[in-house]
């Protein structure tokens, strides 16, 4: 959505036009859901958090500053809700073993991989991403999926830019370590195949 159109919608939503805010929800719901879903790794909880994030954003619209992108502000709200949710879940269940969390996406019919090797690799990569810490995973998702700069990611996570770079560096190192164990014969060839199928 172009920035000026987005600002017009926000201005109208601030004046109480529900249709303007509905347009904003429509524009951002999938991106926000993708981020939250990968962060909390549960479909139902992700939907609830997204809903709460949109409601909170609507009620706090007056505090939004046009200096930053609306998506950055929205992701900041959602990330804080995710943090609170994960803390509550930890408090309720003690030590959380995320490896036991049910994975919902691999067997869905929309899986893009056409070969068994790519499908296996896809599962392996997401499994490795899920083993990252929450800030590392969020930084990776915002960087690759949302294309956010390190400064913007810092705003979302509430940390300095240097810390974001550190998160990304550690996340890549950990992914390298985890994925090297799942050694693929030829990552380069797979990359070419994967790019064609994942896109």
């Amino acid at each position: 959505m172009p920035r000026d159109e987005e600002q017009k919608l926000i201005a109208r939503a601030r004046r109480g036009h529900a249709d303007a805010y509905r347009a904003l929800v429509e524009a951002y719901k999938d991106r926000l859901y993708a981020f939250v879903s990968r962060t909390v790794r549960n479909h139902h909880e992700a939907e609830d958090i997204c809903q709460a994030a949109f409601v909170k954003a609507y009620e706090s619209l007056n505090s939004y500053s046009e200096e930053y992108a609306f998506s950055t502000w929205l992701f900041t709200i959602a990330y804080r809700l995710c943090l609170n949710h994960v803390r509550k879940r930890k408090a309720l269940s003690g030590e959380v073993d995320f490896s036991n969390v049910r994975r919902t996406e691999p067997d869905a019919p929309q899986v893009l991989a056409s070969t068994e090797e790519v499908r296996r690799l896809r599962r392996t990569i997401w499994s490795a991403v899920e083993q990252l810490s929450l800030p590392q995973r969020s930084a990776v998702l915002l960087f690759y999926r949302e294309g956010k700069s390190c400064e913007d990611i810092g705003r979302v996570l509430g940390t300095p830019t240097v810390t974001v770079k550190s998160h990304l560096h550690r996340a890549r190192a950990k992914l390298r370590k985890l994925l090297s164990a799942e050694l693929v014969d030829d990552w380069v060839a797979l990359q070419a195949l994967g790019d064609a199928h994942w896109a």
Partner: protein
Amino acid sequence: MNCVQAEQLFDAYLDGQLGGSLRLEFDAHRLRCRRCQQTLAMLESVGTLIATDSVHPPLSPDFTDRVMARIAHRSAQRRRPLRRLLLVAGAVSQAAAVLAFVLYWLPPKPRPAAQPAPAAPQVPLEYANSPEFRAIRELVVDRVERRLWEMHHAGTQLTSDLVGLARYLNISLPADVARESLRMAGANPWQALWDAFLPRGEEETETPPATDELHSI
């Protein structure tokens, strides 16, 4: 450039921040090093997958409707106390207006007539001119005068005692204090009363005493 040096530049390369001669060196190493090629390909694959892979199951189709319904519900909940407050305030203000209207149009209560002030007691003229009244008046004046003279003599005695004590103790007093003490000791009390109630014709200007005026009495 060797593998260790190249690995230190992986982050900058993946973030698109590697440029210039360093980028040329990095690319040259990458072309001839299969291990670094594999690592970079792996990391780029991860980035591509994260960026493009879809999330399943997708968001519910009625997600937006539910969000808007929740917003409307919460807005209504927020407005409810305010609305109740406004209703109460409106009812109270209407009642106050009716009360003010009624009080304004009611006939005022008749006020009781003001009581005349009691007259000051006056001495009858025939009694004021009688010899008994004159005798009593003279007696009162005589007693007041005698009392004033007694007070005057007591003050004079006290002043002379104080002056004597100061002289005995060899205490230095300022000249104006000593002068004023002696004047008070010999003053006529009637004159003091007269001075107190009647304005003076000429104001005496008093100069502050200089320190060299100190002397011993």
